[in-house]
Structure formats: structure tokens, C-alpha cells
């Protein structure tokens, strides 16, 4: 199977759709049309490619980890999205969306952020394209990620605290959507993951498929084919969607590592929130539950609809990882390879460290979606 385009109404199997207020529907339809045109326009593609190369620093390297491979007994390869400008894979998507927004004549970007990585990336793109930028961030996350808040402000963005509900990522999404409802005519909602109403889950995956396409070529050169396993952390699931897109048509086992306290696929209850139908952590009455994770970027009770489809169809598996295992993995990669991973990306490391017996001697491609500088303070508190 391959990761194909969704239906015209944005369905991946039973999942996806456009569950937003009528006010936003024309904007979603306009965005769908604009993205389709841009994505098949060689001028747009070459402009974006140019930015990805000269500004974001692509292609990102593939690093073979000799020490970690020896320790785990499998051949570990890292796709180094941590080396991108702004320190994570998020830049791929925001450069695409900002370029598209500009093309659509929008003058302002609004975004949500959890760990701050997407917020920083959006603020960066806004600075580059000389656009206004408003970023919503949960009050709890603002406290956890002070450095990224400062970065966004330095880049000229306004950071607004989302004080409702659990005051984390899901509430930042609510606030960003409310803002968008109020300012839809001149503002583009620069959504940070493969979630939300159509066309976002598809468009964001397409902007990130460069990760998978590059890795496919790099693995071909190094291994002579696809790796045995491809693993990525999953909150909303954008970095996983990007790397999976390059390998969905191979025999590689695709694994999404979910935080145990935010395992939407693990619980497998379908729901509708933030514009799409997908798996969603909720109580028996449909009230959305608060996810709990050591990493602010994965602190989300849902998952992108295409992941729900990949799970339901059996093409990908989704495995829970505990906070304690993540703390171990964070130290493991730092110690063995001299690479400090983002706590989000450490979920993928933690999964293979746990599942290594199943994959002895196999090649395992890990999407190292971000670097851990932003998490060092938090880890210092945990470890000391």
C-alpha cells in the first residue's frame, strides 16, 4: 500500500473530513484549491526547494550510529531532522505553508504550539516572509518552554497564552481556531501537524514527505534498499507521516511511538475534534481527555487521521512509551552518540531500546525529529 491522496472531501478510509464551523469552510476549500495548484506548479516547487536547501539546510544527513547499534544489537540509522534550521522537522511544513499563504495573499499567520518548535518555526517563516505572526501556547507549556517563548518574541511574533482547559497543546489549537474564525479573511492558519480539517492532514504530510523521500534515497545508497523498520514519535504525527510517506510502499515495518499518557491509537476510540475524525482520548460522553506526557510536543489527546487509517488498515503499528523510558533514551543517545535528542524524538529511541529483541540484526531507521537543547533545563531538573 502507499500513502495516497485523500478523497476529495479529505477522507483517509473512515477518518479525516472537514468538521469545522461554516465560517471556516470557504477558507478550507480555498486552501485546498490553492494547495493543489501550488503543488503541481513547478515554480512553487522550485521556490520551496530553494528555501529548503539554502535556508533550512536540506537535505538532512543520515547518520549511522555505530555505538548505539552495538549496544542494541540492531543497525541504527538516524534521519537528522534535528540539524535543520530551527532545530526540528517543523521548518519543512512552515516554509511550505508560509509560501502558500503569501501566494494566497494572506498577510498574517496564526499557529498553535506545544513544545514551541512549531511556534518557533512559524515565527521564523513569518520573519522571513515579512508577515505578522500570532502564536497560541498553553500556559503550562509557556512555563515548560520559556526559551522557545523568548525565541518567538525575538523573531517578532506575538505569543498568546491559551488559558482555557488543560492549558496545553489541545487548548492552543482551540484558541488558534477561534482566532482564525475571527480573522479568516487575511490570516492563514499555519497548523503544525497532520491534523485539523482537510486539506491540512494531507498538505502537511506532503510538505514533510521530503523527509521520507530523502531517507529513501539515502537508505538505497547505504543499505541497497529500504530499512527493515522505520520508527518515529507521534503526537499529531507530522514527522512520522513525513518519513512514513517515503516507505509506505516498501516492506519496512512502520512504527509510531506514542507517549503512554497520550496514546490515541493505543486506546483506539474514534472521535471528532479540531476539524477531523480520528482516534481521540475521550471519556464515555465524548469529552476530550487531557494527554499527559513529559514532552510538551506530544501532549495531545488525538492523532492525525491518516495515522488512524494506517493503524486501522494494519500498515503501521503504534506503540506506547512511558516517560521513564523516554528519560532513559534521552540519556542513551546523548551518551552513546553525542546527540542530544528532543524529548519528542527520544520516544522513538525509547521504543527501539525496548523492542530491540524483536529486531536483532535488523536495520532500523529512526526519525530524529528534533534536537534536545530546548529540553535540557527540564532534564536537568529531572536528573538532579
Amino acid at each position: 500500500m502507499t500513502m495516497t491522496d485523500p478523497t476529495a472531501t479529505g477522507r483517509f478510509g473512515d477518518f479525516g473530513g472537514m468538521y469545522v464551523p461554516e465560517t471556516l469552510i470557504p477558507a478550507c476549500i480555498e486552501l485546498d484549491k490553492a494547495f493543489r495548484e501550488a503543488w503541481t506548479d513547478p515554480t512553487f516547487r522550485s521556490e520551496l526547494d530553494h528555501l529548503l536547501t539554502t535556508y533550512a539546510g536540506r537535505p538532512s544527513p543520515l547518520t549511522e550510529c555505530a555505538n548505539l547499534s552495538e549496544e542494541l544489537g540492531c543497525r541504527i540509522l538516524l534521519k537528522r531532522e534535528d540539524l535543520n534550521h530551527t532545530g526540528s522537522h517543523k521548518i519543512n511544513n512552515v516554509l511550505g505553508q508560509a509560501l502558500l499563504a503569501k501566494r494566497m495573499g494572506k498577510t498574517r499567520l496564526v499557529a498553535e504550539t506545544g513544545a514551541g518548535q512549531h511556534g518557533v518555526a512559524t515565527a521564523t517563516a513569518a520573519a522571513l516572509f515579512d508577515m505578522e505572526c500570532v502564536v497560541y501556547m498553553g500556559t503550562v507549556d509557556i512555563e515548560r518552554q520559556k526559551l522557545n517563548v523568548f525565541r518567538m518574541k525575538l523573531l517578532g511574533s506575538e505569543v498568546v497564552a491559551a488559558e482555557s482547559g488543560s492549558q496545553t497543546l489541545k487548548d492552543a489549537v482551540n484558541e488558534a481556531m477561534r482566532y482564525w474564525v475571527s480573522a479568516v479573511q487575511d490570516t492563514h492558519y499555519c497548523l503544525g501537524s497532520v491534523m485539523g480539517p482537510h486539506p491540512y492532514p494531507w498538505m502537511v504530510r506532503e510538505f514533510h514527505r521530503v523527509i521520507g523521500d530523502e531517507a529513501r534515497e539515502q537508505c538505497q545508497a547505504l543499505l541497497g534498499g529500504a530499512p527493515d523498520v522505520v520508527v518515529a514519535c507521534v503526537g499529531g504525527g507530522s514527522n512520522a507521516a513525513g518519513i512514513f510517506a517515503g516507505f509506505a510502499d516498501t516492506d519496512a515495518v512502520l512504527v509510531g511511538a506514542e507517549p503512554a499518557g497520550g496514546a490515541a491509537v493505543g486506546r483506539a476510540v474514534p472521535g471528532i475534534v479540531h476539524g477531523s475524525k480520528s482516534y481521540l482520548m475521550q471519556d464515555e460522553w465524548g469529552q476530550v481527555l487531557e494527554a499527559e506526557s513529559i514532552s510538551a510536543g506530544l501532549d495531545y489527546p488525538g492523532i492525525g487521521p491518516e495515522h488512524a487509517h494506517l493503524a486501522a488498515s494494519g500498515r503501521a503499528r503504534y506503540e506506547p512509551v512511558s516517560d521513564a523510558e523516554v528519560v532513559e533514551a534521552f540519556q542513551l543517545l546523548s551518551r552513546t552518540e553525542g546527540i542530544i535528542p528532543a524529548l519528542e524524538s527520544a520516544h522513538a529511541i525509547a521504543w527501539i531500546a525496548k523492542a530491540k529483541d524483536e529486531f536483532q540484526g535488523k536495520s532500523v531507521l529512526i526519525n530524529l525529529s528534533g534536537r534536545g537543547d530546548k529540553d535540557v533545563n527540564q532534564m536537568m531538573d529531572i536528573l538532579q
Partner: protein
Amino acid sequence: MTGAIETALRARRSDGGKCLVPYLTGGLGDDWLETVMAVADAGADAIEIGVPFSDPVMDGPTIQAANDRSLEAGTTPQRILDALRDADIGVPMAVMTYANVAYRMGWERFMNELRASGVSGCILPDIPLEEADEWTQAADDAVVETVMFAAPTSPDERLPRIAERAGGFVYAVGLLGITGVRADLAASALEIAGRVKAITEKPVLVGVGVGTPAQAVEVSAVADGAVVGSAIVQRMLDGAGPEGVAELVHDFRVALDA
């Protein structure tokens, strides 16, 4: 078949009057049901009962706060419906909630529960035409009126489709934004009311940003009436009690009848 809400609104209109549909958050305070009855007596033509949802993206701070407080008190959709089933409200009611509340219970079961509780209509602001089929099928089967939204951003070609699918009334969104009281009525309120009125015979009520009796009167120069939410819910949050809330609804009624 014309449902109870549409029948009531059409009756008000054919008498030369303007329609008033207050919104109250279900489960907000121990006396919420008494408040609903008092509001019915104070001149509401129909009443929207909000069933709280954890992530109400179409709602501003007032209704968000009401949602949170009601949920913290242990409110569930079933509890609200059970209370309504045992009460004699005297005017037709619609439940307003979000898609996931209905989807989680199951479209059919939720619509049947509404019907069994004496609720005539259902309003789901995050279900646009594109996603409406499952819901409207279940609602039609259970004879529940499906209120649909028309927004200032809706292009002309969508309006007839929205109106055709709508039951009870067409909910014209008064401004680009979420629910809440504003100092002035937005120009977009009259504009969208006019655009929808031009293409349908069904009652057209404007809501979102209609917070004072004067604003309700102003918008009803074009629309068939108004939906008033945040202003009323704020009274509930302030602890005004059934009489205090009914007093405000009475003020709206008097203004609209003048």
C-alpha cells in the same frame, strides 16, 4: 414535515412579531432547569439548551466558562436530557452541542434520545454541509430539526443548500468570530441576514454578537429574530437565578415587541 421549532417561529412571524431564542447552558447551577422554565415564561419562542463540550471552538470566554463550570459539576448529556424529559417547558427546545458529543453516543441514539426527551431540534456548529449526512439522516429518522449555519463567509452558491437542509431555522452567524457580547452590532449581521432571507422562506435568526435588546431589535429589522447566548449565560454565571435571567429575557421580548 415542519417541526415544533419552525412551527413556533413561523407563527410568531405571521403574527407580525420577531422571534427570540435564548441559549442557556445545561447543568449550569442547581437551578438551571427552573431557569429554562422561567425563560420560557418570559417570552422565549424556543430555547437552545447547551450541552457542554470540553473543546467548544465556536464559543467565546463566557460560554467556555459556563461549559467548564457545568462539566466540573458532573454534567453529562444524559443527565441534561433526563432532566428535560421530566419537565414541562412549554416552548420547543433545541440542543446545541458539538459533533463529538453526539458521535460518541452514536448519531441514531443521540437523535432518538433528543426526541424522547421532548427536544425538537439539534444544533452542531462543527458539522458543516460537507459532513452533515450521517447526522441529518439520523435526525430525519428521529424527526429532529437540524438547524444549519450560514456565515458571513458563505458564498452565495452555498446559501440555498444550507437553507434547504436546515430545519427549525437558519442560524445566520452575525460576525466573523466566536460567541460573545460586543459593544455594537456588526454590519455583517444585517448583511448575512439579508442574504439568507433573500433565498429562503424558513425563519432566519441571527446569533453570535447579539447581546443587547437594542441589538436584537436592530438585527430583526432584516432577520426574523435573534439568538441570544452569552448575555444570558453571563447572568447565569453571575448567579442571577431564574428570576434574574428571566428578567433579561423579558427585556429582549419587550424590546422586540415594541
